[in-house]
């Protein structure tokens, strides 16, 4: 945390993206989280992802619940509308917002307490409805704002800072998202920007429910010996299944790869997800195989990361509701109100 105000002047030599924005245009207010908090790295990754994708910042809506992670939308995308909702209920607010205007990009930011405990129900239902969004859980296995209680993603046997051992089974949000039909699922580590930034980019371009579980160590309450969400533990047990490059438009593959090590997935918007395989047999387009792999790696105390599943042709809530192309919030009187003639006819049928 810092009390210094962010300088308003931009260095003239800052590089601009295709829209003419610098990276600074995607930043927000200064973070009030603890120094070294994994969440700040995720905010930085979001900023970089949006800058590199040349997204107009005001066309993104960022929504969150309650908790340390849910505070972070203040610290990125200052030109975007943001909504810090109530604890565990961001998914419903995001769903409503998405229904109102299908043209904006929706970024949901949540934590493990927010999504796996109080908000588990809404997490499940937003995934099964296929809301077009990027849903990031900043997962540290602990309640930070209330000082160190276990969360529902804490592994069984994990030790708290005060020495208590967690007796409850952990909820794996990635496993749930797989089972509930999310169409883009990734896991990453706040300490691995190289992996995280393209994962976020792929999720934003994905036209369906995209979920990324980002393990993000809590330096204040869950970074000690015996924790399974500490920087050291995650680094030791991280098993990436692939490396991802996100390509907005197809370009030539210039680097040569060993046969069978490259997999490409074309997304509905035309973007290409180019995956360099790190795990020989892993196929992220096969949901059942991906679920099996997750169970196996979990049994081996490994944390499978990377792009774990993607459906190149996802469907979303608007497709299910068969809504018009014009955003609902832009429909005017003539589109919405049937008028007095229709009413007179209706009256006649009620006599």
């Amino acid at each position: 945390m810092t009390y210094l105000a962010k300088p308003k002047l931009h260095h003239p030599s800052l590089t601009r993206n295709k829209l003419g924005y610098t990276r600074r245009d995607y930043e927000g207010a200064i973070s009030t989280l603890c120094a070294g908090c994994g969440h700040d790295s995720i905010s930085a990754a979001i900023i970089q992802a949006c800058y590199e994708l040349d997204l107009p910042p005001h066309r993104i809506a960022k929504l969150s619940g309650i908790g340390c992670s849910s505070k972070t939308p203040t610290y990125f995308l200052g030109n975007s509308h943001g909504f810090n909702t109530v604890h565990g209920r961001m998914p419903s607010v995001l769903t409503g917002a998405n229904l109102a205007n299908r043209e904006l990009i929706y970024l949901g930011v949540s934590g493990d307490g927010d999504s796996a405990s109080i908000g588990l129900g809404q997490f499940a239902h937003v995934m099964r409805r296929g809301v077009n969004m990027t849903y990031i859980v900043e997962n540290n296995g602990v309640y930070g704002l209330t000082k160190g209680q276990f969360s529902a993603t804490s592994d069984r046997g994990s030790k708290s800072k005060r020495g208590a051992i967690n007796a409850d089974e952990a909820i794996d949000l990635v496993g749930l998202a797989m089972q509930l039909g999310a169409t883009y699922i990734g896991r990453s580590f706040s300490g691995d920007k190289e992996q995280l930034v393209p994962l976020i980019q792929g999720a934003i371009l994905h036209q369906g429910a995209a979920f990324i579980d980002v393990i993000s160590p809590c330096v204040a309450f869950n970074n000690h010996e015996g924790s399974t969400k500490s920087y050291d533990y995650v680094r030791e047990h991280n098993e990436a299944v692939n490396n991802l490059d996100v390509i907005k438009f197809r370009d030539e593959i210039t680097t040569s790869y060993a046969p069978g090590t490259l997999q490409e997935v074309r997304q509905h918007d035309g973007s290409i997800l180019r995956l360099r395989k790190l795990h020989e047999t892993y196929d992220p387009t096969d949901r059942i195989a991906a679920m099996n792999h997750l169970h196996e790696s979990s049994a081996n105390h490994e944390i499978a990361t990377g792009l774990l599943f993607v459906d190149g042709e996802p469907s979303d809530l608007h497709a299910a509701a068969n809504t018009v192309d014009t955003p609902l919030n832009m429909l005017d009187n003539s589109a919405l109100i049937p008028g007095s003639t229709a009413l007179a006819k209706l009256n006649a049928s009620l006599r």
Partner: protein
Amino acid sequence: MSKYAIEAVNDFVIKFANVNGSGSASANTLFAKSILRMGVPVSPRNIFPSNIQGLPTWYEVRVTEDGYLARRGGCDFMVAMNPQTWDKDVAEIESGGYLFYDSTRQMPQSKFRTDVHVIGIPLTEIVNAAYTDPRQRQLFKNIIYVGALSALLDVEVAVLEQLIAEQYKGKEKLLAPNIAALHMGRDYAITHLNCNIGLKVKRADNVGDRIFVEGNSAAALGAVYGGATVAAWYPITPSSSLAEAFAKHCKKFRTAEDGKAKYAIVQAEDELASIGMVIGAAWNGARAFTATSGPGISLMQEFLGLAYFAEIPSVIFDVQRAGPSTGMPTRTQQSDVLSCAYASHGDTKHVLLFPEDPYESFKFGAEAFNLADRLQTPIFVMLDLDIGMNERLCKPFDWDDTQQMDRGKVMTAEDLDAGKDFGRYLDVDGDGIPYRTYPGTHPTKGSYFTRGTSRDRYARYTEDGDAYVDNMRRLLRKFETAKDIVPKPITTKAAHATRYGVIYYGSTSPALHEALDILNEAGLHLDAMRVRAFPFCDEVLDFIHVHDEVFVVEQNRDAQLRTLLINEGAVNPAVVTPVLHYDGTPITARFIVSEISERLKTLHIAPLHTVHAIPTKRIGQEIK
């Protein structure tokens, strides 16, 4: 045998005691509608338990040439089709009334009353002879009794035939068998029964251009005309049919030429998600609503606080039922007044609208969206089961085509480019209502962060006490502004100057009007005010101040509106007398007359004439 038989033309109560799921509902509606088509007002009510199939259900029709649409109480003619409830049904008949039953099976004499006129018709025998399919036997039995009733009560058969023809338009195969069944019952009655009974329907001209519709459907139509595009709901009696009616109306009125929907409806996982979706959609500039009942309101509390504090326009239709908890889920009450008025934690107050019937459910249903946008706050439309789930005769819906949606104070990209100062919580006009921007409006101006946590006028997070108080005071100013724009109360002056008044609201309306007529006839005069919204405008408090005593008639135990009057209007509790009806049945004029006249008696206000809640003209002719 009874000495007297009730005699009345166009003024009686007929009650159908049926078994749930037996297909009686459409036959009973057909009966009620046929009387309406003869120009005689009717007021039907469904009385049903919380189950789907096999248990008792009642349909009560008040035939009322005078147009009194409240539940009258009592029953003059019982159509006893349910052996399970026989004893209770027979006991309910007024002395001198009529009992109509299926006489296929012999019943012991002890099962009848000597002061009730018995009309037996072997319905089971008739259907068993005419049909082989058990389902047909069941369904046509209902039409057959309607046919028999038409002969007994003088309902015009051509009217019934016309209604059946309308019902089966496009399904002509079903038309002829239904007409045949109707005549089967009618002919049997003419041939075998003495149809010269004391209750008759006679063609009149008292319905006019009124329509016959359920309040839930009307409110849903209001949402269509109010420009709602997003609806999120969770099934709960008695509000589910509101959301379902919205879907039906939208399919008809909001389908684009290419077949796509100009609306989105989500059946959410619970009420928390419903209101969350409404808040999200409304934050993003769509008009959105949910429909629920008391327990749903309880679940929405946290979100309602957010919507109040973050100032999100949202509309909640609360179709009230008897609580607390699941209470009596299929019975009516006005018992969510306080839980809605002060919904949520912290200091909150909300705008409530009280429609009296389907017409106002439509009107207020549409207007709620203008109020929500104008005031940037949740608006509750307070229906109840009595209005919502019964077909009620009311004024036809009307709409002014020149009327545009009032989206309230929204700053556009042009405004921002013109350099207008945008502070999300800045009171520019002194009415407590700030400007908002929709997400995505402008690349560099007008974005802000919405939160339930304290912030300053420019939406910046702060825990500064002064900024917090400044904001909370502005919200009070906004509530003051609301007083001037919510629907005004309606006052009915008594025929003579009086020191007594009565305040009422919502579905109590028809019973109260009838009660006033009865009291007036007895020389007891009261000025009456129908409150149509909270916060109360000055007129409401003035009404109380100019009377010595004001009765506040409500359908709940705790006198909830009276509590609001005392709390918000600093009214002296001694001058507002509660009149409370809360057994789950709709309030009646009989109840109101009895409560008010008793109270006036203790005040030594003697009526000029005897108070008759039941007019004497209805007792007549000796049975031969």
